């Protein structure tokens, strides 16, 4: 017989640890627990670093050298640092794309697709709208409309969830492939550049200005920073954010208390999609200057890990995205310093994600046992 079942009725039973419950619990950590949870994050990050070091050692590299190469590869000089900043920009936006629907307990795994569609919109709008539009108007217009495009792409799983209760994981994942094919069609058929697998260059009037000479950092970076702040305000200070959190934590009570659960699902997905769409647009008009194939570097998917590491909190998205950007950019330096294949960088990222999640489970089990 399970002792847990012998509790008096009045005492809340621990809810089972499903992936859903796991994440939902991270959404609203009570403030008094926040310090302890930061402590946990530090412990788990340290232990994770230990495991990664062990893997590196097994592959025949000196972990200390590798770490140094990783960090200096990402932050060591202005150019690399700039690259890290721009990747942080993209990851912060795709992180938001995951974090906001996740807060409503909607698993948006389609950030990649929403990002692709945003990029498609950015490239397409630049090439089809009259190039005579003034720069101060055209570039922001492209950004905003592309973000809206991302929102529309996010609307698909959100609306299907709300209307017919379609599984949002499957729909959002499928919408990724549709968006990738659409981008490929744009690259090969609609606006082909010629030999290079990319679209024609976006007109100069749509490009985001460089804001740090000697690096690739463009105005996209402050745009992402602004988006993070907006997301934080929405989640913490608005009615919509409150409703998103409430529905995520308890859809039943939310419904009985007058929240329109379906509508909130749609809004959460659209918000997430808009941020991913902005990421795609920034990649096109703020980094590449056109839409190349495989431009995303899987950042749409990596955004999920960013959101989870940030525990779905918009403000924590920034450091979380920065962390993953360091890993990504730094792994280029890894090859030079240690002779390891660049794919080791991918392995490290994956290891981090798996271990952090594992620690999260351990932590919740521990908390439950302490209850």
């Amino acid at each position, binding site marked *: 017989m399970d002792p847990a079942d*012998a509790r008096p009725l009045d005492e809340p039973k621990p809810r089972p640890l499903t992936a859903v419950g796991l994440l939902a619990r991270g959404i609203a950590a009570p403030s*008094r627990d926040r310090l302890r949870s930061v402590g946990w994050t530090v412990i788990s990050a340290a232990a994770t670093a230990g495991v990664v070091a062990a893997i590196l050692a097994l592959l025949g590299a000196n972990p200390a050298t590798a770490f140094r190469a990783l960090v200096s590869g990402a932050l060591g000089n202005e150019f690399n640092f700039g690259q890290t900043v721009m990747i942080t920009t993209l990851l912060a936006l795709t992180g938001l794309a995951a974090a906001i629907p996740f807060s409503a307990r909607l698993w948006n795994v389609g950030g990649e697709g929403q990002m692709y569609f945003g990029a498609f919109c950015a490239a397409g709008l630049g090439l089809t709208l009259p190039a005579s539009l003034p720069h101060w108007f055209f570039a922001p217009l492209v950004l905003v409309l592309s973000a809206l495009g991302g929102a529309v792409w996010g609307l698909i799983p959100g609306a299907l969830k709300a209307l017919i209760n379609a599984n949002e994981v499957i729909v959002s994942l499928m919408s990724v492939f549709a968006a990738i094919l659409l981008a490929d069609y744009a690259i090969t058929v609609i606006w082909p550049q010629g030999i290079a697998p990319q679209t024609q260059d976006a007109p100069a009037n749509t490009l985001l200005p460089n804001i740090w000479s000697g690096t690739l950092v463009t105005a996209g970076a402050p745009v992402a920073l602004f988006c993070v702040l907006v997301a934080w305000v929405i989640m913490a200070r608005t009615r919509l954010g409150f409703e998103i959190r409430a529905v995520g934590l308890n859809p039943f009570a939310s419904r*009985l208390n007058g929240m329109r659960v379906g509508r909130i699902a749609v809004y959460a997905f659209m918000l997430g999609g808009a941020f991913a769409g902005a990421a795609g647009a920034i990649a096109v008009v703020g980094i590449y200057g056109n839409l190349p194939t495989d431009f995303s570097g899987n950042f749409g998917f990596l955004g999920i890990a960013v959101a989870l590491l940030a525990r779905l909190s918009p403000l924590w998205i920034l450091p979380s995205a920065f962390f993953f950007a360091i890993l990504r950019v730094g792994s280029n330096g890894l090859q030079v310093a240690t002779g390891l294949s660049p794919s080791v960088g991918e392995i490290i990222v994956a290891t981090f994600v798996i271990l952090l999640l594992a620690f999260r489970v351990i932590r919740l089990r521990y908390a439950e046992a302490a209850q």
Partner: protein
Amino acid sequence: MYTLTIVSFGEQREDATPEARGSIVMRGITKAYGATIANDSVDFELRPGEIHALLGENGAGKTTLMNILFGLVAQDEGEIVIGGEPVRFASPHDALARGIGMVHQQFMLVQNFTVAENVVLGAISKWNMAFRRAEVERGVQETAERYGLAVVAGQRIRELPVDAQQRVEILKLLYRGATILILDEPTSFLGPAQVDRLFGTLKELRDTGHSIVIVTHKLREVMAVADRVTVLKKGRNVVTAERGSFDERMLAVAMTGRDLLALPPRTKAHLDEAALFRVRDLVVHGARALHAVHGVSFDIHAGEILGIAGVEGNGQRELVDSIAGIIKVESGTVVLDGQELTGVSPQRLHAAGVSIIPEDRRVWGLVLDMTVAENLALAQIPGGDFSQRGILRWRDVRMRARELLELYDVRPADPDVPVISLSGGNQQKVVLARELARDPKLLIAAHPTHGLDVGATEYVHRRLLEVRESGSAVMLVSHDLDELLKLSDRVLVLFRGRVRYEAPVSELSMDEMAMAMAGTGGGAADAELAHVGAGGDPAT
């Protein structure tokens, strides 16, 4: 060659007479959970062949004490002596080996298994289970008949009503040779007729030499069945008394530490005016039964409490959920104060002046991981309060929360703690505060005191009467007949989704009401059939 080990096991036990087994004595039992002391040097003695009630409010430490006796929890201090021999149980298996068995509030039955399978589960080998099914079933049936437990060994658990499931739990223990039965709040899910029947069974078991502990907080049950009673309060012994030397009043004082206050006098309901709330021919489909609510009609006047009685699973939940806009109304009308509200959304209900105290506050009432302030504003925020162009004014939310916390005496009165950290009674006060603060025209209260201790229950009752006095209509759904009779002006009984009985409380016949709850016009055979049909699942 296998023999059905369990049968010989049972026979083995029978030759040990109750006297030889002696009393169970728990002495100086202390158990602390962190800073909370659940049992503080508690003494308890169970004599052979008695029914001993362990009485106390929620959190008095009753269940903890019994969990210790059953080997689920280890005591920090104190000893357990059985027949003069000190024992220490590491697990329920150890306890069961000494003939001690426990039926928990939540049954532990496999819904898709038959009665026989559940009874023998874990007690016989898989081999026997698979290949000697008929024999096993016969053995179980014989055991059931020997103890006068009306169950059919071949039936599946999910087809059984709650009281039959409970009998299966008891049978499970008897089959394993238990002679000492601990029943934790055994009547929580039973109607009055079923309670009588359970008590009959318990008395028979006692007369055949079993010892029984019933853990309860209901005075009536102690009066009805207990040979002795031990009262616990805040983890300590208050009194142990023999039948004849206790009465309801004395037990109430022992349990709560004070006399229960009389309820305030009530004014007359506005019966001469047109009814405030009208339900006509309501039909609702349930998850299991096609017609969970089958053409129910009733009126509630301003200043009137209508009590809805019935054994669990007779359409009460669907009735409430359909009015609350959670599940679909197939046909019929719901009208409040001239405004038709059939099947409208929860937000429109709020606007029309309907408040709901839902059946399960932890699922439908509260967002447990949010703060008290957020929960108090849960319905107002979607309604557009506290926000300007979509931006929330948290200062106002928290200020309003402080007011409500004080007004409804919630402890701690801190708007920023997560509501999950509050006790059940205080959680319910948060729900009450939110629902009553908006001055509802109609209040629907579903089991508003379920799982609450006596003090919190009394508080809820007073608040409900206040709502009544303010001229609102109140629809009170409860399994607790005492509560219904105490609060309601009129009671109706639901049986299989229909109104079986309706009467003002002043003219009510308890016999007729009990029969209506059992679905009988007479005849016990009828009742049996009715029970099977009305089966509800306590866990959902």
